[in-house]
């Protein structure tokens, strides 16, 4: 069973749709027992970093998430990926701190948000196509990077460490390519 962490932030209708389409049966929950029963945890998220952290704290989810991320596949998507890191400029807030790195505003001459289809760069042949990004902040890290894209400068697109996976783009909105990546992430991740 896949548990999508329900903390009131973000548009999960389409993530749920994509998982159903792939043949999974996700449960949307913030119930600690249900989260513990799940085989896989997905942390979604759209919106403000600071709000997201506050919601997770209000629901008292930090201890259980901290425990589960060691035990089972744990996938953060979009803002959910950014939350896995130590700190963000957005709201100047601490993140979950599961991965080394920080989150910074996208700067440069290109439009912000970074919005649209951009090509993945990775040594893995399965991670080469165009996927749909929509974000104004990006992860700064040199570690655990599986795929990047280029938007004026390199942007981290997928990270993986042990059972933790972070996906910056929206696999549920990236056509067939995105569905394949989502499926791969759920089936144990990316083989390096």
């Amino acid at each position, binding site marked *: 069973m896949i548990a999508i962490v329900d903390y009131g932030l973000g*548009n999960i209708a389409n993530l749920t749709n994509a998982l159903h389409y792939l043949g999974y049966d996700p449960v949307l929950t913030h119930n600690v027992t249900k989260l513990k029963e799940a085989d896989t945890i997905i942390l979604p998220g*759209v919106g403000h970093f600071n709000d997201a952290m506050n919601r997770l704290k209000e629901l008292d989810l930090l201890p259980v998430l901290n425990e589960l991320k060691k035990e089972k596949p744990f996938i953060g998507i979009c803002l959910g990926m950014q939350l896995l890191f130590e700190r963000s400029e957005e709201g100047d807030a601490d993140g979950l701190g599961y991965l080394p790195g920080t989150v910074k505003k996208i700067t440069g001459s290109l439009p912000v948000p970074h919005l649209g289809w951009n090509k993945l760069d990775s040594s893995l042949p399965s991670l080469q196509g165009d996927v749909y990004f929509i974000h104004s902040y990006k992860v700064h890290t040199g570690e655990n990077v599986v795929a990047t894209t280029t938007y004026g400068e390199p942007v981290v697109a997928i990270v993986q460490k042990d059972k933790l996976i972070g996906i910056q783009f929206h696999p549920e909105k990236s056509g067939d390519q995105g569905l394949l990546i989502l499926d791969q992430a759920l089936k144990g991740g990316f083989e390096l």
Partner: protein
Amino acid sequence: MIKKRIIPCLDVRDGVVVKGIQFKGLREIGDPVELAKRYNTLGADELVFLDISATHTGNALMLDVIQKTAKELFIPMTIGGGLKSSEDISAVLNAGADKVSLNSAALNDPSLINETSEKFGSQCICIAIDAKWEEAEQDWYCYTHGGKKRTDVKALEWVKEVEARGAGELLITSMDYDGMQQGFDHELLKKIKETVSIPVIASGGAGNARHFADLFLDTDVSAGLAASIFHDEDVSIHEVKDLCQLKGVPMRHV
């Protein structure tokens, strides 16, 4: 490199896709879910549904259309038309929309942009503007109610304001060029891109593949939108993308 997006727009009235020529004279052309799936297969990068229903029942049918489409279509979907409040936006997002486009409601109450971009995130708030050149005043003005009502708001001032209030994207329709199939309104679009840094979707005037290539070569917009030329199969999305690619514009191929 980020790709330029090609976006078919489906005007939906009471659950059926219709098309408008210069915002007048509508005719039915098909089932929105089927059309959406077809466009996905044909290589559309995103879809825009504009709900032009005038009744509550029509709006309810729209939610049904969004739900059905989102179950089978995994590319971004923007919903616009008749959204007036945070509650309306919440309903379409929950039904499966990724972004909403706001036009009249934002002009009537600009604070709605702040409220909703904070609540749902800037990335899902796209401000749609119907702009028309006023010869007497030598400037572009915003229109509301499907292009029927002129406002006193200058388009170039409005884009600056909506960006400051938290909009994540603009959908700019040139009413002077819409339906003419003579190409996009480069002058208006360039002026807007000089004013804001958020992504801009250009709408109004596409008649052939060349018009899209010209648009991307001459302006910094992020996407080109069209309705009737795609619905009538005057030109295919593949043709548009092939020509753009040939001219050096980065395109996504499926």
